[in-house]
């Protein structure tokens, strides 16, 4: 368990890691990684029951990254919480790396399932949660979804399944940053009113500012206490959060910083003089 101030410090490091690793790779997805930093750091830092030094410990809660392109934030969070050395982050996307361009459970212990084709993770979280119910185990299944990703039909199938089987050990997290590759969600294929949609699918809906560590902590706690139905935390976020020129710009979805931009980005994250 970390205190709030410490979590905020880790968030800074994770943001910097995302910028550095995608810069080193020359490709990758910073935008949707930066918007999910607090969601991931709070989850791995304070919420999940897991053992970073023993990634396949059977008693662990499971995290499923449905929006696989955001793996930089997951890799950085894993490294910062002790799964592997921070130095390894710059191997992202390089030949022979464990840090594949989209996460592979075949290469990196701690990744539960490979992902990268959007829309599939919630079903997997449900299946795992169902197995926990059958075995009367206390494990929980967390699943991070993109808002654009919600346009995939399979997500809505899985929403029905989780509610139908009353999987209150499922916690979905929507990174509601309002952008997808082609632009604004509401212009490409609108989702609003998103909360009402989840609610009408019989989910317990929790809303919060996805960059406010205290709110994110409280949202996970509310999810943990929810009984009889699955819960979703709709986190209002900013794509590219923390780096002024990246914020709310769809173009930074899949483009890394160059050296110049990286210098500025790191200054913004840590403040000048570092």
């Amino acid at each position: 368990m970390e205190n709030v101030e410490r979590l905020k410090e880790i968030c800074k490091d994770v943001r910097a890691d995302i910028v550095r690793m995608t810069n080193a790779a020359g490709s990758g997805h910073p935008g949707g990684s930066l918007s999910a930093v607090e969601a991931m750091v709070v989850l791995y830092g304070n919420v999940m029951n897991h053992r970073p030094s023993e990634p396949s410990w059977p008693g662990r809660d499971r995290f499923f990254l449905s929006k696989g392109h955001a793996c930089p934030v997951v890799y950085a969070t894993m490294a910062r919480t002790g799964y592997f050395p921070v130095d390894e982050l710059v191997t992202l996307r390089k030949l022979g790396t464990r840090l594949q361009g989209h996460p592979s459970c075949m290469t990196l212990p701690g990744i539960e399932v490979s992902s990268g084709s959007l829309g599939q993770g919630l079903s997997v979280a449900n299946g795992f949660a169902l197995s926990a119910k059958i075995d009367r185990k206390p494990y929980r299944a967390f699943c991070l979804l993109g808002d654009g990703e919600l346009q995939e039909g399979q997500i809505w199938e899985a929403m029905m399944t989780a509610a139908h089987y009353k999987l209150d050990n499922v916690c979905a997290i929507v990174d509601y940053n309002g952008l997808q590759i082609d632009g604004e969600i509401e212009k490409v294929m609108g989702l609003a009113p998103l909360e009402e949609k989840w609610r009408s699918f019989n989910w317990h809906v929790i809303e919060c500012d996805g960059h406010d560590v205290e709110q994110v902590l409280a949202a996970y706690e509310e999810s943990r206490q929810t009984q009889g139905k699955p819960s979703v935390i709709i986190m209002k976020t900013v794509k590219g959060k923390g780096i002024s020129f990246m914020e709310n710009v769809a173009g930074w979805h899949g483009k890394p910083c160059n050296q110049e931009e990286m210098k500025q980005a790191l200054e913004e994250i840590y403040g000048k003089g570092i």
Partner: protein
Amino acid sequence: MSMKMLPTRDGYGHGLIELGAMNPNVIVLDADLAKSTRSDWFQAKYPDRFFDIGIAEQDMIGTAAGLALGGKIPFATTYAVFVAGRAWDQVRTTVCYSKLNVKIAGAHGGISAGGDGATHQSLEDIAVMRVLPNMTVIIPCDANEAKKATIAVSKIDGPCYLRFAREATPVFTEESDPFEIGKAIVLRPGKDVTIIAAGPLVYEALLAHDQLAAEGIAARVINMHTIKPLDEATVLKAARDTGAIVTIDEAQMAGGLGSAVAEFLVSHFPIPVERIGINDTFLECGLPEELAVKYQLKAKDLASAAKKAVARKVVCRSDG
């Protein structure tokens, strides 16, 4: 003497029931086709381990993946055409790439969904499942073998695809016959030509054997129940011993069993191979038997292909 007739999906149903008793980790999922697929037989006995996911094949495969991660052995069941088609990306990326212990049962495979027409005839499933790394692909030849295959896949770790038929077909193997995944069964020992078949068409191969025997041609008959991994040793031996091969697919020929055999032989022991099957076309509605005749999947078609293969063998020899 009348032959007992049963659909291979019945063997699946019986296999599931036996697995339910044998292994508490076996879970069965279906997508609103539990009666047709026979998964309802398991549901009736083990309601706590049966989950209907509704008409949502993609979600069913994902849910199966999660169950496998939780240590369960899920059998995701629906029509072959829907699971192999609609949910292919889920099977590829979530199940096969992650090498998860998910068993997929495709019912009403091949032309056995005859009357439903082309939308329901699963002719591409073998090709699209076979091409996936980590996947095992099995077509049981009769209800007895279907039961054995269902039980056998629960004992190996990793993704497996099983194809079953809707129609009753001859039950010509014994319950006591051995069954091992990846180990083909030589049913007739001939020396002149080899017929390689899978699924209910193995029975047609046996009939073709008899027709050829009457003409003085001794055909070897191989039941290649496991399409992948292909039993290469048995294919190679047949190629060496008989010098000519015939394959038959109740599926598109492109990518099917015949492709698997030809791919192997072309680089290890090139000899004449005659392939029959569905040749790059959608079919139409009709009784499965009528379709089999129209699209030339009968014993006589195998026999004439065998004679062609034998003739080519002579030509090859005189050339050499």
